[in-house]
């Protein structure tokens, strides 16, 4: 039989892990607020308008951007459409299964979407073509290729990197009809939101948890910040609580770590 990572053993290690953390140490020697190695490759999918493969430790996500024209939502007739979807591929982990998106995959996609949307990363008003009738629709689909914890951040960085490097046709509007020209322009990206996810194990928050740490965590919190250090989205997860003080600590960590990550994303997508 194949050798799978033994999650039972990991669960037994929980106490050990918490003890280590109390002393400020992690199994893989990282500092508590240290992320794993981040690798960003863009442009690998030529058929997409933009794409990025993000490798965060052993977690790998590929995001692809597809752009088309669409009809605006009735309540925002003069704004373009942005949609973020996620599929956790069955190849990504021994526990993933094919089929319609699980509750977890839906939360993942929505939390990443919220970070992008709420930071006003893409200026949707610049994607309006014919108010009430025609807008540019931007679809960002993500394939989770390999799971080793912290899908939220890996996917968020992939989406941000794909959008930052995406090109779309310039549209010409004539007689209330939008037609694609031959000219390529960038997607109107205004901000670079960065999501930072922390797990609580025992009493401590650790940044960018891997699978082993996630197996031992009680609580997860993701906070997205923008270029000015503003907080623009957050999501607490898992069936446990967090103290008010720890929420504020997490906010400060997310601003500090977010700044470092943003620099890496900017560098990789300039």
């Amino acid at each position, binding site marked *: 039989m194949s050798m799978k990572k033994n999650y039972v053993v990991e669960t037994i290690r929980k106490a050990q892990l918490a003890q280590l953390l109390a002393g400020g140490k992690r199994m893989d020697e990282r500092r508590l607020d240290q992320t794993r190695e981040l690798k960003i490759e863009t442009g690998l999918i030529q058929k997409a308008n933009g794409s990025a493969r993000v490798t965060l430790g052993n977690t790998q996500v590929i995001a692809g951007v597809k752009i088309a024209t669409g009809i605006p939502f009735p309540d925002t007739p003069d704004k373009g459409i942005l949609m973020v979807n996620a599929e956790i591929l069955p190849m990504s982990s021994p526990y993933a299964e094919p089929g319609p998106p699980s509750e977890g995959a839906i*939360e993942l996609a929505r939390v990443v979407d919220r970070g992008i949307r*709420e930071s006003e990363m893409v200026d949707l008003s610049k994607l309006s073509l014919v108010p009430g009738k025609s807008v540019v629709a931007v679809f960002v689909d993500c394939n989770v290729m390999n799971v080793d914890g912290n899908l939220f951040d890996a996917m968020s960085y992939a989406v941000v990197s794909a959008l930052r490097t995406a090109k779309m046709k310039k549209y010409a509007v004539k007689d209330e009809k939008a037609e694609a020209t031959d000219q390529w322009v960038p997607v109107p990206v205004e901000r670079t939101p960065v999501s930072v996810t922390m797990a609580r194990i025992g009493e401590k928050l650790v940044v960018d948890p891997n699978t082993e740490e996630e197996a031992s965590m009680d609580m997860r919190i993701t906070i997205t910040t923008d270029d000015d250090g*503003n907080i623009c989205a*957050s999501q*607490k997860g898992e*069936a446990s*609580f967090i103290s008010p003080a720890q929420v*504020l600590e997490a906010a*400060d960590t997310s601003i500090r770590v977010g700044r470092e990550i943003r620099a890496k994303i900017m560098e990789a997508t300039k």
Partner: protein
Amino acid sequence: MEGAKVAGTRKLIDGKGTRLDGRKWDELRPISLQVGLMKNADGSAYIEWGKNKIMAAVYGPKEVHPKHQVLPDRALLRCRYHMAPFSVDDRKNPAPSRREIEISKVTREALQPAVIVEDYPRTAIEVWIEVLQSDGGSRCAGITAASLALADAGINMRDMVVGCSCGLIEDTVVSDLDDTEDKEGDGDMPVAIMPNLGQVTLFQVDGIYTREKFQKAFELAIEKGKQIYGMQRAALNARFFGGEGAVTQVEEAAE
């Protein structure tokens, strides 16, 4: 939540800090709570909060189906947040949306820390939240009602759970956003707390907050939650000590 913000041409809050519906920045909408209305459920609670009208009901502990979901050491907590097709301005498709699926998940994770699931191994506890009419803050209202329904069902709990959303309108921190403020405002931060344990069990944010306003909104949400907890207690007292079949209608005292 999602759906881009509508650029409101109207002012949501005036120079004196008065909101469209006349509330001050830190005031709650009217809230009323009733416990034990549903006949078949093991516990239930009904909440009206602003224009929100939400019924929560609890079944359990009961047998787990399918069997392979049984947890040997604790109860399986199930939770569904669902909106009636007529609860919103445009008719909603009855099938659960992605938004409802996410809210069901965070609601379950907000309630579970308060439920002593270890007391009911190998059983299921089901929490059904039905939004009959929706206004801003429906997930917090649903959690507040569901916590009462759990207590009404006699489920062992560490604490109640109570939710309140605060946020930003025109860069001012305000409490308890209604529908218009949620859609046209600048940020929404739903928070649920266990008031006696002083812990946060639901925490979501959207909008753009400076670090300072983030903290102010967050602390306001906790303060407001504690205030609503007083109403929860009163509603439970009325249910259990208010005489047979009695239900409670608690209006918030004017601030």
